[in-house]
């Protein structure tokens, strides 16, 4: 190929790319096209593969891998007999526990609804420098950007981008994650930030004289308007004086095990809890009613 042409072609391609990139930054048309086509198609493939894998595993464990089942069966029968005896003994204790628990139980986050979904993969593809997971729910099935993502143990992250039936969620450990939190015992507010996949979280803006201790639980404060208040997020792992003077350097470990996520819970606001924006006609009607 002619050297002039070899240089001209990339220059033209770069110009075209810059045009497309700038246009997309304004309109986000290509982003939504990629989410609606690429992510959906890949999601369908990943869901099918997961389905096949689950079926094969089930067939293997239920019908083929029966070595030692007889011995295991007899052992289990013995254990059942033991457990039944223990259960009879603890029925009264259990009834008391249930009564006490109902007295102490805090109400679930008001106006929030929990939706379960499967994790299909983590950081899939070359365009995933952020620490993310791909989940099997999209904007048609309850997952929109900034939807809180949890495990049964605690907060795992939040939804970053959503296609119709698939989404990408940003995990706590990503250096771009920021969550408004409060320490459970000492009630000190701060911002929890990720620092990398294998690094501890950082609890920022904790005053120098704050009585914070290692092992203390950190929960969401609800001040960011994304997470409901009181969800467990992390546990303080180290406290030391910072070079910055005014603040302590506090490290924390996520409560949720982010390395082995298979299913997660999405916390979705109930539709009736959202403030519906008023139309100009409604505003005028309200104003007229107030004047009367």
């Amino acid at each position: 190929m002619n050297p002039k042409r070899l240089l001209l072609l990339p220059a033209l391609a770069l110009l075209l790319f810059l045009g497309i990139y700038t246009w997309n930054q304004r309109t986000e048309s290509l982003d939504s096209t990629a989410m609606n086509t690429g992510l959906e198609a890949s999601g369908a493939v990943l869901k099918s593969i997961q389905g096949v894998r689950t079926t094969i595993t089930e067939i293997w464990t239920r019908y083929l891998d029966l070595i030692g089942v007889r011995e295991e069966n007899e052992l289990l029968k013995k254990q059942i007999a033991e457990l039944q005896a223990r259960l009879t003994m603890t029925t009264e204790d259990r009834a008391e526990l249930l009564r006490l628990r109902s007295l102490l139980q805090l109400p679930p986050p008001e106006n929030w609804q929990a939706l379960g979904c499967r994790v299909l993969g983590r950081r899939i593809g070359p365009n995933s420098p952020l620490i993310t997971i791909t989940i099997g729910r999209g904007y048609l099935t309850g997952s929109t950007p900034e939807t809180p993502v949890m495990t049964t143990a605690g907060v795992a992250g939040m939804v970053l981008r959503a296609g119709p039936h698939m989404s990408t969620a940003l995990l706590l450990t990503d250096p771009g994650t920021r969550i408004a939190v409060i320490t459970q015992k000492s009630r000190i507010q701060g911002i929890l930030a990720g620092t990398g996949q294998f690094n501890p979280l950082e609890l920022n803006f904790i005053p120098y004289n704050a009585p914070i201790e290692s092992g203390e639980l950190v929960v969401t404060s609800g001040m960011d308007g994304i997470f409901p208040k009181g969800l467990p997020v992390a546990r303080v792992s180290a406290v030391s004086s910072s070079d910055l003077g005014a603040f302590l350097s506090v490290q924390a470990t996520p409560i949720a095990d982010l390395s082995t996520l298979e299913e997660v819970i999405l916390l979705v606001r109930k539709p009736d809890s959202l403030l519906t924006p008023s139309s100009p006609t409604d505003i005028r009607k309200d104003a007229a009613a107030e004047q009367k």
Partner: protein
Amino acid sequence: MTSRNFVWWGIFTITGIWLQQLVPGVDFLIPGLLYALQERNIPQLAWILPAFVLIQEGLGSLDFGAVILWYLTAIFVFMVGHWIFQAENWLFILMVSALTAASHYMVISLMCSLQALSFDRSLLLHDSVIQAALIPFVWKLASVSRRKVRLHEDSA
């Protein structure tokens, strides 16, 4: 394009997506793109390139554009390399793999900076090194499995 060819690309793409689920942060489709460039079949390239771009952009976590820029860089590297070496030469394949992986690191860093995103540089470097090691093998596997399809096409 024969149906056999279409099926081959379908299987390649599905396998690529599945492998990407197993190895995070790595592109298993780009060796296919490089192989398509090697075949010099423009109509085939005209549908493979947008399909791969849409898949990778959709699966990713950055705004649209990073994959296009990276694939364009890979195509440029391939064209320059092809100008110097023969396309079947192992040295050429290794050179294109290394440069493509290096450009992956640079393009993603650039796009993160443009979008004001903080990211884990060591993780990205790790992904790019795996990418460099992986391209020649997938490329070779693709070319071996593709030989039968091409033989069938040539005889047809």
